[in-house]
């Protein structure tokens, strides 16, 4: 293992992470909800009366974020290697997996660990290990 110093961004990542934690705190302390993206979106696919508006509003805010940051002159340039087929398979796995596992990086990884939930710790270790194994196979064995 070597450290990728060219791409490692400790301070912006720490600050951006703190902002994510602050957003989760806002949703929790103002709306009483847990900021788990897969759960919020998944709930819209099984809508229940009185439980839709806050979900739509949160997703709306998420979708408005790039435009808001662009106004401040902050862009982002993603590096994406995956082709069409890989994106489709990956999307299906992420959609189904987060539904069966009741959460993703935000719900289990950020909010769950913040709550010291053992269930979320197990989920986080499982998806981290699976992600690392997948990248190992894709990058170093094929």
């Amino acid at each position, binding site marked *: *293992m*070597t*450290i*990728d110093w060219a791409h*490692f*961004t400790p301070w912006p*990542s720490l600050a951006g*992470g*703190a*902002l*994510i*934690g602050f957003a*989760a*705190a*806002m949703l*929790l*302390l*103002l*709306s*009483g909800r*847990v900021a788990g993206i897969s759960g919020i979106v998944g709930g819209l*696919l*099984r809508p229940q009366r009185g439980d839709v508006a*806050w979900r*739509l509003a949160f997703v709306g805010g*998420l*979708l*408005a*974020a790039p*435009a808001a940051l*662009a106004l401040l002159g902050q862009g982002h340039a*993603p590096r*994406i290697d995956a082709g069409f087929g890989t*994106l*489709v*398979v990956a*999307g*299906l796995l*992420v*959609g*189904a*997996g*987060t539904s069966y*596992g*009741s959460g993703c990086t935000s719900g*289990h990884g*950020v909010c769950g*660990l*913040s709550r010291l939930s053992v*269930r979320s710790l*197990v989920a986080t270790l*499982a*998806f981290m290990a*699976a*992600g690392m*194994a*997948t*990248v190992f196979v894709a*990058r*170093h064995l094929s």
Partner: protein
Amino acid sequence: MNALFSFAAGLVFGAGLILSGMTDPGKVIGFLDVAGNWDPSLAFVMGGAILVGFFAFRGAGRRGRTFLGGALHLPNRRDIDARLVGGSVVFGIGWGLAGFCPGPALVSFASGVDQAAVFVAAMLAGMAAYALAERLR
């Protein structure tokens, strides 16, 4: 009012994802590639988020209510079952394949990244398949 706060939270959340670098799948895969040229940034993102989140959840737990007096909707399950672990493993495989998880994928979709649109469509299909399977159970 509640919807307005939720919108603001989503906006700040998305801004945090962009500023932290997590909307770049190359950075996510760089973190997952522990055997190669490792980019530890994602650990700093989670560290920053959990540091703030820990105090928020502790404060909310002590208050028992939101600042507006509303109810807290917290998960109450504690069981660790095959669905939790199996689902998380399946999610992790998809995450490692493309470098997208749900939040960053939605943000990238909104900033006009074509690949993110493909990923989000497939992700919604995966979630819809689950919702259908649950209804048929």
